[in-house]
């Protein structure tokens, strides 16, 4: 190591930091990641976090029962504001999910190896976010017992869904997205579940992880097809994730409401989704890595890279806000112009300016490396981005609905305590699922991390992992 270091010191000065720090071998990776699941005593902090989240999730369940048994009159919706917190939450949560797929699929296709230690947790986040999202359209239909009309299954009226409606596109887009994300996540986990099975010290573990691992025996003939399947799933998930928020945006864009009826919506929604999703990934991973001592795997570089993406996508979102104003002015359409003036200066201007501050101004702090790499500043920025992105959806939905063409049909909207409780409850559900994931499933893609360590041994990255692998000296300091 010492000779290599002196020879390559100049190269190292400009080299990227390694993907995995510390002297990790294949076995220590297994021990560390499996250890999180296998530790006998659940940490007290986990129980506290779980108690809070599970209580909030229970609140959500109770409020759903209240809603279904009473009717959506307990929400603050009215005519013309027929969508409020419900659809705001739906769009917000679907958007959160997008970062997970971006990390797992798009960064995989671009050979961004730094994704390996964060993709598992990010994909889990995707699935839990889509579950939270799915709750709201399901319950907002009013007569929940007819929610199956959304699906192309025979019903008592012999009518099929109306396939020209973007609301049905939404059902298919979100449904496919959830299913494909689940397959991708589960498939990635099979080798790691087999690791847990092979280390199992009791029958329950052996059976549970054994069933989930499907008899995986690390065969190279299996790995060959597995890697191909993984690559193809990544290639399929990439256009899928871009389509999902595009379709969600068409729920708005295909209507004729001023402020909704615009062609910029699909890319604008996708950029916003990735932006908010990455903020949520950082919000979850920065504390988790500290709590579980995973700094060797989720390094400062990981967090910094994600914060750079937040900065980039946040600026794209800011650009989209500007273009919306330009289009409204340039269109010469009085209603469009009014809508956007109303957003910035009307009764919901507080929400609008919260959104602009959190989404456009706050991420600009990430131009400073110090802020990108320190825990508390980055947590504050990311939490504010989440607030801002929730308000973005609120502003789009409520300002446009409350002020449409005819002043005589204008209205206003005020959420009730039930809606606020459901929003809090959806965060509870999300955190409950995430905490269960941390406790029972492998938090990191061990097999992928091991492959990265081995690549480093090949000389792709000049680090000493002490893995005891030699014989790759034919590429000293090789191509990056």
């Amino acid at each position, binding site marked *: 190591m010492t000779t290599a270091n002196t020879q390559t010191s100049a190269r190292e000065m400009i080299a990227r930091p390694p993907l995995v720090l510390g002297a990790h*071998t294949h076995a220590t990776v297994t021990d560390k990641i499996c250890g999180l699941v296998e530790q006998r005593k659940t940490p007290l902090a986990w129980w506290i976090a779980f108690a809070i989240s599970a209580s909030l999730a229970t609140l959500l369940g109770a409020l759903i029962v209240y809603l279904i048994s009473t009717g959506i009159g307990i929400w603050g919706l009215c005519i013309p504001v027929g969508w409020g917190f419900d659809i705001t939450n739906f769009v917000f949560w679907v958007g959160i999910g997008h970062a997970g797929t971006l990390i797992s699929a798009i960064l995989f296709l671009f050979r961004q190896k730094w994704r390996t230690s964060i993709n598992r947790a990010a994909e889990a986040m995707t699935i839990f976010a889509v579950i939270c999202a799915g709750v709201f359209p399901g319950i907002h239909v009013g007569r929940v017992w007819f929610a199956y009309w959304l699906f192309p299954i025979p019903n008592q009226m012999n009518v099929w869904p109306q396939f020209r409606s973007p609301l049905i596109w939404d059902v298919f887009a979100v449904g496919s997205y959830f299913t494909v994300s689940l397959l991708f996540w589960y498939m990635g986990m099979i080798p790691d579940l087999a690791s847990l099975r092979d280390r199992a010290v009791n029958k329950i573990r052996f059976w549970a992880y054994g069933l989930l691992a499907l008899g995986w025996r690390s065969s190279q003939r299996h790995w060959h097809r597995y890697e191909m399947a993984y690559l193809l799933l990544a290639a399929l998930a990439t*256009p899928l994730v871009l389509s999902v928020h595009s379709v969600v945006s068409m729920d708005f864009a295909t209507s004729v409401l001023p402020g909704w009826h615009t062609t910029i919506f699909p890319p604008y929604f996708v950029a916003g989704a990735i932006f908010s999703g990455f903020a949520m990934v950082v919000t979850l991973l920065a504390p988790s890595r500290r709590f579980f001592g995973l700094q060797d795997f989720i390094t400062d570089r990981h967090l910094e890279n994600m914060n750079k993406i937040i900065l980039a996508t946040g600026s794209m979102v800011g650009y989209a806000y500007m273009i919306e104003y330009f289009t409204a002015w340039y269109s010469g359409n009085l209603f469009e112009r009014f809508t956007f003036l109303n957003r910035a200066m009307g009764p919901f201007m507080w929400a609008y300016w919260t959104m602009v501050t959190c989404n456009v101004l706050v991420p600009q702090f990430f131009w400073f490396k110090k802020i990108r790499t320190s825990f508390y500043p980055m947590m504050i920025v990311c939490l504010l981005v989440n607030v801002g992105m929730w308000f973005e959806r609120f502003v789009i939905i409520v300002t446009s609905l409350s002020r449409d063409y005819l002043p005589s049909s204008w209205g206003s909207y005020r959420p009730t305590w039930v809606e606020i409780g459901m929003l809090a409850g959806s965060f509870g559900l999300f955190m409950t699922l995430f905490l269960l994931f941390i406790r029972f499933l492998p938090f990191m893609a061990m097999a992928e991390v091991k492959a990265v360590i081995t690549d480093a041994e090949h000389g792709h990255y000049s680090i000493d992992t002490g893995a005891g692998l030699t014989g790759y000296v034919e590429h000293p300091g090789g191509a990056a």
Partner: protein
Amino acid sequence: MSAPAAVNTKTVAVLAQFATADQLLSAARAIRDAGYTHWDCHTPFPLHGLDRAMGIRRTKLPWLVLGGGLLGLLTALLMQLWMNGVSYPLVISDKPIFSVPANIPIAFELTVLFSAFGAFFGMLALNNLPLHYHPLYNNPEFRRATNDGFFISIEAKDERFDPSATIQLLNSLGARTVQNVEEME
């Protein structure tokens, strides 16, 4: 895990463990060149270059995925045509009963969904998974294959398999340990 003496066991494979990934790679080349067919490598992660070293032919999985995608596309288009155009024609704003542009989003989603099914279930089917029992797990050492062990297994049903010569070959290739894998008869 040695079986009780009263039960007859037979050797179904030999299992060789190698200390490092590159030893495994060169050993795999040698086994391939020796003409074995019923053998496999077991590594905790996909080892690059091992496919070629073992002489594994490219999987036909992409064709299954393509088939899944086409099936999804066809399903989506026929479903929308039949449901809105034939079974119960829905006239909305005097638009055509069947117009492709309005049907594209669902056609796209189902294409991706069915392709993903093809990738996931196709991978499992070609790998003959799920499998609830495999004799290799009768050897307790084999559990390291999902941790940090690099293994080669050669099955006894291979034509070139010879109880002593095969073990000798594996030893000469630098295997750390070579053990028989037993199975109850």
